[in-house]
């Protein structure tokens, strides 16, 4: 492998609460190369945000604690740094874009104050330089008449604009890595498209590495090179993006893919939900964490926890944490497209298709009204 920008090894982050120890991140290992975009996908509570916060050492202590593991960023271990050194990295080399642009900007400071702060602190710019750079940044992220708006307060901006301000802030010190934690979840679809487009262009232009954390498989499909799927504090499947969508192997990934309706679905098929609830991370299941909800489970799944291992007959970097997909397992050669779970549904769909009238040609649409 080439020189990695970020190498996370066996990261364990736990929260010590009155009810017990919450193992929010439980042995996560991954790496990010310079300029690469990595997607981390999972439901709420699977530990994806805690992973991101751990990378920046932003976990509140107590109750949280990074118990074990190492985070090598650019050759230095973030976990061994003292507070001053971490502060030198935060915002400077690793920046973060938060989910909620409404609450992550300080409402009593102007936009210019908030962006300049990092510039003055990390890049030792003086006030006028920092202001000039702030305006450039706002221009770059597509805020119209940036010069006029730089002295506005956050409440004068709309949600999409605030997210652009957050992105400008993240970019301010030319970081090598940007963690984007659900950057578009709070936004409307048309604004989401604008922001994703912006992030994509920035990643290309500045060769910044991104970690894109989201629950929306649609968002990562168009944005990332590699995807890690997380469940119950662990990575359960990793692969490059095309491979993961073409040839997913872990039953949880299947569950995610077929439980959401797709905009381009040809006809109304019944959704196949994942039964049950995500695991309780204080007392997770003893074996595979997905076992209680998995329809392909076998005896071994409840007894022993599988390791993240390469899947036979697939691309070299395609790994899954599942007994069924290991050498000689019962899911290795299963084609997920056939695994809709209910064969009756497939038959129904087939019959429906046979009865469908032929698709209308585009020419059938009437021309616009001539007189109004």
């Amino acid at each position, binding site marked *: 492998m080439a020189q990695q920008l970020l190498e996370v090894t066996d990261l364990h982050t736990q929260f010590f609460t009155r009810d017990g120890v919450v193992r929010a991140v439980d042995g996560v290992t991954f790496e990010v190369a310079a300029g690469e975009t990595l997607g981390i996908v999972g*439901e*709420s*509570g699977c530990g994806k945000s805690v992973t991101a916060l751990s990378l920046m050492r932003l976990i509140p202590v107590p109750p949280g604690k990074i118990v074990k593991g190492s985070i090598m960023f650019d050759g230095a271990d973030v976990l061994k740094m003292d507070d001053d050194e971490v502060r030198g990295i935060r915002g400077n080399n690793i920046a973060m874009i938060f989910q909620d642009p409404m609450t992550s900007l300080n409402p009593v400071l102007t936009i210019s104050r908030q962006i300049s702060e990092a510039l003055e602190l990390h890049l030792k710019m003086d006030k006028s330089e920092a202001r000039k750079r702030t305006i450039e940044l706002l221009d770059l992220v597509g805020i*119209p008449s940036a010069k006029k708006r730089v002295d506005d307060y956050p409440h004068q901006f*709309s949600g*999409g*604009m605030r997210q652009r301000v957050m992105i400008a802030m993240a970019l301010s010190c030319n970081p090598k890595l940007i963690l984007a934690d659900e950057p578009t979840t709070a936004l*409307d*679809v*048309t*604004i*989401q*498209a*604008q922001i*994703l*487009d912006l992030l994509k262009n920035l990643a290309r232009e500045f060769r910044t590495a991104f970690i894109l954390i989201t*629950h*929306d*498989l*649609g*968002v990562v*499909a*168009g944005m990332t090179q590699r995807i890690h799927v997380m469940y119950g504090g662990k990575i359960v499947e990793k692969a490059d*993006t*095309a491979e993961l*969508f*073409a040839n997913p192997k872990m039953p949880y990934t299947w*569950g*995610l*893919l077929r*439980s*959401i*309706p*797709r*905009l*381009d*679905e040809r006809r*109304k098929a*019944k*959704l*196949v*939900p*994942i*039964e049950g*609830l*995500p695991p309780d991370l204080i007392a997770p299941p003893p074996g595979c964490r997905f076992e209680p909800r998995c329809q392909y489970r076998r005896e071994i799944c409840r007894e022993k926890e599988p390791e993240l291992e390469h899947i036979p007959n697939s691309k070299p970097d395609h790994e899954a944490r599942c007994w069924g997909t290991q050498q000689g397992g019962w899911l290795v050669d299963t084609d997920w497209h056939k695994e809709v779970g209910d064969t009756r549904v497939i038959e129904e769909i087939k019959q429906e298709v046979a009865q*469908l*009238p032929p*698709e*209308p040609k*585009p020419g*059938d*649409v*009437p*021309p*616009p*009204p*001539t*007189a*109004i």
Partner: protein
Amino acid sequence: MALNTPTKPADPDYVRVRSTATIDSGKNLLDVKALKMHFPLTQGIIFQRQVGAVRAVDGIDFFVEKSETLGLVGESGCGKSTTGRAILQLYKPTAGEVKFDGVELTRLGGEDMRKMRRRMQMIFQDPYASLNPRMTVGNIIGEPLEVHNLARGKEKTERVQELLRVVGLNPYFTNRYPHEFSGGQRQRIGIARALAVEPEFIVCDEPISALDVSIQAQVINLLEELQDRFKLTYLFIAHDLSVVRHISDRVAVMYLGKIVELADRVDLYERPLHPYSQALLSAVPIPDPAVESKRKRIILTGDVPSPVNPPSGCRFHTRCWKAQQICSEVDPEFIEHEPRHWAACHFPGV
């Protein structure tokens, strides 16, 4: 599927069918005409005078047929939730008519309205805020039964237990409190409460957007099952176009207080006529990198304008790539361009 009957573009009368979004009133459970809901903006402390209005809903026409699902989509702030509430008379509409099964709701008094409310219910977006944390599940679901004098005592308890079973919860949960449940289970409680009075019509206001991805499918499936079983009619409000496509028979697209397009599901998603619908559809990411790399995105610039002071003429013209002179001057009429396919645009087309 309404893919049949090729239209006759040459016929000028056909194109000019007016905005009567009601073809056959007999079949319709709900008829909404020129509905307006304005919220006044006031100034002054003692003598409050009105200085303007938020035109949340500004003249919409549509109808809902019996046992169908009408999806209502749009971005936040476009007035979709206000529409739902104005229909149920939770807000007093500023103007317009709301006819439910032939009865004009806007003129009904308290007692008559309460009787009508039995027939129409609502499922709320946030399962954490819409259940009283101090009431047990049994009381939450049983309350509508008491209010409408449907059941008391032992009968009520049995009915509550049955409702819990219907929505897929354990009937012995009646003495538990909402905090003991997960988001998906709470939403089921909300659904059971709505079902308690055996309504015909349910307004589902973003019922799944607060839920986790793997839980969303459970609730969608439940709503579909219940619809089949109890012959329910839904007005399904959501911002997620994929979900709306999945659950709806017909879909209405709203923008800034107006319905810009209304059509059967297949027509709307395959051949949207209004540029806003086209942009909205192209903006939804699809979980498939192969498809995603080939798609052409229409990226709208700017934000939704303020409903206090909406743009003149067509409200979408400030963000529309097709906009011409006329768009900023004349508000386009809501016209039936194809059978059962209405759009409000001067230059509709694929």
